[in-house]
């Protein structure tokens, strides 16, 4: 199918873009990489009246360290995240997730701002943002505000951004030396949206887990924190019995549903398998004591 008729405006600045959004009487949409929006328009799932091209706004670019955080501009493409040395060393969880996002040609165009703003529950970057509780920078043309990731993803494709607000950047905390992370997902084919996936980040004191955040995606209408599993693991050394308890706790954390790919029960089982597998892979800072 073909996209419906639409007007097009190329914005040079955020205030330019927001002004165009506000003066549009119909449905206006910001166009970033277009890798979700144009697919939806071609299928006529979306029929906006105006596309506001934000890809030429320089203020939305760049990856830089600001104090204890890395600021990633909204227009940063998935392919740039994959190859950025700053992200590899300071936000390793994001670097670990990037190869799982779509295919090379889509990563060459798709942007992190578009991925977080679109808030597809099967997407990798929203889950990483939640696991690290990144700060989402929102710009309405006059002022900038921040929303923590844990308050940002509200429901299916629904976020805390107000209509017209541009997601200008995502701020990730710099990984500390005692922090370890891991990311994995199960999909039928490399690059497809996940059947179920998990992002884990843990702070250790020696070999004991001080704090751990576990986020599953593709299991509900938003990325989901497994709070009970986290509680079961806090203060432990992640030995097999701890991991078993966390797997049991998971039943209270997730309530996935059926879809065309798998049943809810299979998805729950796969989440549990993924949790055990990834906790086993979490590289503990000091060698674990030899178990009797």
């Amino acid at each position, binding site marked *: *199918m*073909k*996209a*419906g*008729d*639409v*007007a*097009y405006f190329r914005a040079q600045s955020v205030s330019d873009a927001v002004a165009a959004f506000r003066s549009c009487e119909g449905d206006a949409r910001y*166009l970033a990489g*277009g*890798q979700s929006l*144009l*697919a939806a*328009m*071609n*299928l006529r799932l979306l029929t906006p009246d105006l*596309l506001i*091209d934000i*890809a030429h706004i320089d203020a939305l670019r760049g990856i830089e360290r600001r104090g204890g955080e890395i600021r990633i501009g909204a227009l940063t493409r998935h*392919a740039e995240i994959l190859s950025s040395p700053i992200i590899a060393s300071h936000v390793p969880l994001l670097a670990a997730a990037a*190869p799982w996002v*779509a*295919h*090379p*040609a*889509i990563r*060459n*165009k798709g942007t992190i701002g578009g991925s977080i703003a679109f808030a597809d529950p099967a997407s990798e970057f929203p889950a990483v943002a939640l696991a690290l509780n990144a700060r989402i920078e929102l710009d309405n043309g006059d002022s900038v505000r921040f929303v923590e990731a844990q308050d940002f993803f509200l429901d299916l494709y629904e976020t805390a951004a107000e209509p017209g607000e541009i997601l200008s950047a995502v701020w990730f905390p710099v990984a500390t030396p005692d922090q370890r992370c891991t990311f994995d997902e199960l999909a039928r*084919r*490399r*690059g497809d949206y996940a059947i179920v996936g998990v992002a884990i980040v843990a702070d250790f004191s020696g070999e004991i887990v001080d704090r751990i955040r576990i986020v599953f995606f593709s299991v509900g209408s938003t990325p989901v924190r497994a709070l009970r599993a986290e509680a079961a693991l806090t203060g432990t050394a992640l030995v097999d019995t701890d991991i078993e308890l966390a797997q049991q706790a998971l039943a209270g954390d997730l309530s996935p549903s059926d879809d065309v790919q798998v049943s809810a029960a299979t998805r729950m089982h796969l989440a549990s398998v993924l949790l055990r597998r990834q906790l086993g892979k979490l590289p503990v800072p000091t060698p674990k004591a030899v178990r009797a």
Partner: protein
Amino acid sequence: MTIDITVTINGRLYRASVEPRLLLSDFLRDTLGLTGTHVGCEHGVCGACTVIIDGDSVRSCLTLAVRADGATITTVEGLGTPEQLNALQHQFRECHGLQCGFCTPGMLMTGMDLLKKYPLATDDQIREGLSGNLCRCTGYQNIVAAIRAAAALRNETTP
């Protein structure tokens, strides 16, 4: 509403006035008659429409023609000619990397990008690089073999 654009495609400059909703894939095929770029799904899944824009492989079905203004694009017509195939096309023929040929333009453009970014491409990198391109005929093995052979030959000839 139409918008004027100027695009360089396969070394040739084109000027046109396009509707915003016109996809680059349709611009190439219908407006310019460059029908080498194939269209399978129009939502990014099959990879048949892949072209190279400013050095990167991109889905032409998920790109508006207006956004190609000022860009440099290579399509399959810009690789070799039937008389003089380029190195990768030659390996597709040698390795039997195509049957009906529908997916082939997208496979070639994806392969070109892959070989540029991973000159020493391993089988894993080739398979992962092709993950977004569907082929209903070959079973993929000979496509992987063709790209592997092109990489190997190039590394033999360029010290």
